[in-house]
């Protein structure tokens, strides 16, 4: 299973997104967290998570800090950030924090699916390489 962690304080939206992603690609395992702290806890529980999809604005620690700490916690993690209010400064800060792609809300679902499916292909290739090394 390819694990994706969604962090968004709009819990219903996060659950809908999780349901949508899991339906389109049932080999995805989606984990949902409502705060940055909870998201980092989930990453600790699931260190094999491949993709983090976090909102920028969160109660407590914000998405930028979540991205920074998540990248340290899980090397190789692909980080996507989403926001309905992402200005240029936020985008630059996010990129510096290791965010691969900044997604505007409402989300472009085709773009999101393409990114997640691409991450799955890259992860599979990475796993094969590691197997060969071993």
């Amino acid at each position: 299973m390819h694990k994706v962690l969604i962090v968004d304080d709009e819990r219903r939206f996060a659950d809908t997104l999780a349901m949508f992603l899991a339906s389109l690609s049932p080999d995805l395992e989606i984990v949902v967290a409502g705060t940055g702290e909870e998201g980092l806890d989930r990453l600790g529980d699931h260190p094999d998570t491949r993709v983090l999809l976090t909102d920028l604005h969160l109660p407590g620690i914000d998405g930028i800090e979540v991205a920074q700490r998540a990248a340290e916690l899980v090397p190789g993690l692909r980080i996507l950030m989403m926001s309905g209010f992402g200005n240029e400064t936020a985008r630059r800060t996010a990129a510096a924090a290791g965010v691969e792609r900044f997604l505007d809300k409402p989300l472009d679902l085709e773009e999101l699916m393409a990114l997640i499916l691409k991450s799955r292909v890259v992860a599979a290739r990475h796993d094969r390489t590691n197997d060969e090394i071993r």
Partner: protein
Amino acid sequence: MMSANLPTAVPAAADRDVASDVPPGNLGTALQRAWRRSEFAVAYQPQFRLVDGVVRGVEALLRWFPGGAEGPSPREFVPALESWGLISEVGAWVLDRAARQWCAWNRQAIAPARITVNVSSHQLLDPRLAEAMESLERSYAVRPSSIEIELTETVQLAENRRAVAEVLELHSRGVRLAVDDFGTGFSTLDLLRWLPASTVKIDRRFVAPLPEGRRELAIVRGILSMCRELGIEVIAEGVETLEQLDLLRGLGCDAVQGHIFARAADADVITQLLTLHSHRTPSTECGP
């Protein structure tokens, strides 16, 4: 002769499934030729439960490929099939194809709980429908409870006692009844008083303006509330955005159908989708 009942208004581009190159005046003749030349095909579109994203059913949809190219939308040519007296024959063929496909999925252990097929009131007056239903059980071991018929043109249905009797007979055999395009006909509310429908499909016209459309939102909320009271499952049609999906989940809608999850596609594509879902989609109503 071309019937006066043929549609005069061509649906707006957004309402059409495919582009039309067939001149309206020649539609009836073209359809007769199409039937002889086997130019019809069946496409399938899955319906997803909102509680867990599981495929709750697959709708079989008639498509027409004149000369191998994409043809008019069913909204355009199905009324013409009725006017030209072809609908019973073509409808029985769709039912047969759908049942055969469901049987193939069942053999692969990926069948959804039900296959749904559109049935017009014209078909309900034709004894071949009952015969077709019986032969499905014999030929493909499809249980009636795995078949859901979507009733369109419910105004005509309510006014025709023979059609009503036929619907009730099918229901007594276990066939599930769904009211299609709910909210767009004048008698659909009355229909729910007496029709033992298990499913109502909210027409895409109410879904497309969501989440902004306040009037449509009020109507959708009302339909959901009413159907909840009546114990009727609700499917929203034409769902295309995450915001619509999120809103409908929040309102307690049971299932959705629309481009957000999957467009109508041929059986091979849907087979792949069902295979992916098979580990999370229990086929609870498989045939023997």
